[in-house]
């Protein structure tokens, strides 16, 4: 019996693991592509380069980023 359930659960478990991995990958990609992770990136950079200064809060960071785009518009293609 045990061998039989193993035979069933192993591929299932592998499939589940694969699905979880794929889901994580998609989530990672979307977060980075859309920009959700931009603040974390900034924070990591700030901690490394300017450890003695206070970083901007998330709200400040996004305001700053949008203001920057106002001053310096980026092109979008046709």
């Amino acid at each position, binding site marked *: 019996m045990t061998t039989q359930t193993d035979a069933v659960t192993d591929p299932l478990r592998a499939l589940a693991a694969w699905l979880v991995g794929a889901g994580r990958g998609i989530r990672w*990609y979307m977060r980075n*592509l859309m*920009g*959700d992770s931009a603040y974390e990136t900034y924070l990591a950079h700030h901690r490394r380069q300017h450890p003695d200064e206070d970083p901007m809060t998330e709200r400040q960071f996004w305001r700053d980023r*949008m203001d920057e785009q106002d001053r*310096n*518009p980026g*092109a979008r*293609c046709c």
Partner: protein
Amino acid sequence: MSSPSSRRSQSGAGAVVDEPELVSDPNLPPTSLTPEQDAKTSRWTWPKVAIWVAIALLGAVAWTMLAIVRGETVNAIWFVFAAVCTYLIGYRFYSKVIERYLLRPNDKRATPAEVKQDGKDFVPTDRRVLYGHHFAAIAGAGPLVGPVLAAQMGYLPGTIWIIVGVVFAGAVQDYTVLFFSMRRGGRTIGQMARQELGRIGGTAAIIAALLIMIIIVAILALVVVNALGESPWGVFSVAMTIPIALFMGVYLRFLRPGKVTEVSIIGFVLLMAAIIGGGWVAGTEWGAAMFHLDRGVIAWGLIIYGFIAAILPVWLLLAPRDYLSTFMKIGVIVMLAGAIVIVRPEITVPAVTIFGENGMGPVFSGSLFPFLFVTIACGALSGFHALISSGTTPKLVEKERQTRFIGYGGMLMESFVAIMALVAAISIDQGIYFAMNSPTALTGGTVEGAVAFVNSLGLTGVNITPEMLTGTAADVGEPSIVSRTGGAPTLALGLAHIMQQALGGQALMAFWYHFAIMFEALFILTAVDAGTRVARFMLQDSIGAWFPKFRDVSWRPGVWICTAIMVAGWGYILILGVTDPLGGINTFFPLFGIANQLLAAIALAVVMAIVAKRGKNYLRWLWIVALPLAFTAVITITASMYKIFSPVPAIGYWANNFKYQEALAAGDTSLGEPEVLEAVIRNTAVQGTLSIVFVLLTIIVMIVAVVVAIKAIRNGGGENTEDEPVASNRYAPAGFIPTRAERELEKDWEGRL
């Protein structure tokens, strides 16, 4: 070169040492693969040979089916195979030649993202993420429109140009501009033009860029106006994108900053609700009355919208709509590719139609050479990409060698989008295609007129009936589909036709049609808004040379004045296009293509000057740039010459102008009432003048570039305008899938970045 005596080796896979030895931190693992590892990776093994032979064979079979067999019908799957196999071969072989001999990236050298790292503008970004960013920035409505219009000449000319053009021209431009801008700290193409081509060439390039921006925004706006005119459903759902974007903007600003994917999903759901709601609203009496708008009204609405949108803060409207459009872009492209593979529609359009042979088609006039090549710009060679490949993307590249994947590979993906748009357009009945794309001037805008006109074209296998046109209009929930020019409605019908076979059946036809219209309108509205902003910025910078106050971008009056000038510029052309008695799209679209190719000529001219200045070792490979440059120069100059000098009124702007002037002077009303004559005279004069300006700018830039290149060749090189090389202290693989050696090196770096 600055140090002509420095070691230059002809061997090596990419990592040719052209500069002083760069020493990275000795405590870190290597920052690039060794030449031995490279050689090992690129060594041919039997399985590799077998795979590439199989790809080549499949591609050859696909091309044979498209170009030589040309049966009664041809299956759409062959387009996919021909495209993908050619892209793979171009990417694996041709782009490697460019990398190895022309650009010679050096992974030991730090990119601007690493050197100037600030956590905001300069951020070393994962190559796969940056690929997505770059693609979202370059691909818009352009590759969806041009191929649809070019389909009047048959499927084959467009297919060959899109696929071959991207491999030898479009992707080469994007890749080289990206690389050279990266070597210059992310300088823009305008700055590089000034630096490499000098004052005259640089000024011509900047004027060209400004004019092109105006033309492109105007024509894209015209496409939207044509898609929404007399379509209450379309007007309602596209109008709803504005409150949706405003809501998203407020949500991100005040409620949950930084939750971009979350708000995009919410926005997407609202968007779907707007499309479904649009069908209901258009069905009600008040809805039909309120949203059934004339094209002139929509054009004015768009102009007012464009002005307001360009002076509102970015966070409120532009940024959220951009998120939504990125989200939709990737989703729809994946969905359409899947649907084409699943449905595999049979194509009945001939390989080359009679209009491909005589150049007298109703969608746009002019012979295959050169007009096919200016009608399809985006997807094969798009000069506009030079603005994206310089400036934004190069500031985010993590390692030099990744530019091949991002620049060359990104453009291949856009080309694939263009192929899918072509397939969607030719999957619908050819008679319906011509009924939709012939201007009102020819069809009279009525079902009977369209049937009579299309059946009189004498196309084999085309015999439409009034029921076909009214039935299709009813299927997609539109009052009429006659003379819906501009490409967007045709693409939407094609997409709906394919999607309903994959998902939902006939009942969902109207939903898919409006989904596609919405999707294109979203891109175009973003392009209108962003284009106005960029053009304003360029204008402020130029006026700033005389009135420094204008350079201050936070000085509101300056912003308002420059925005108003730019909106007036494209708005004027838009109104001319909407009221053009001869059609609008058919007369103005060639200008769009010519403008875009002109920008490509400028970008390639800058690249050629840079390569010539790099020194003797690069001259043997100069043709890689010179070939597409010569081609695009010939195309733009020939097309402009036709548009200026052709005695055929359907082709030459001035010939048409004189014809109508004579009619007006003689009091002849056979061509139309005096107001109509005056409108044609005014429009052709504007179009003819723009053609002259464009061709003059092209010739100036070309001459300057050739002079600069010859001077550099004679001197055995020129000034090196690259930033000082700095040793890199990080590592990441070059392509999408890392090779074994890259994976091992990546493992050594784990936890160190």
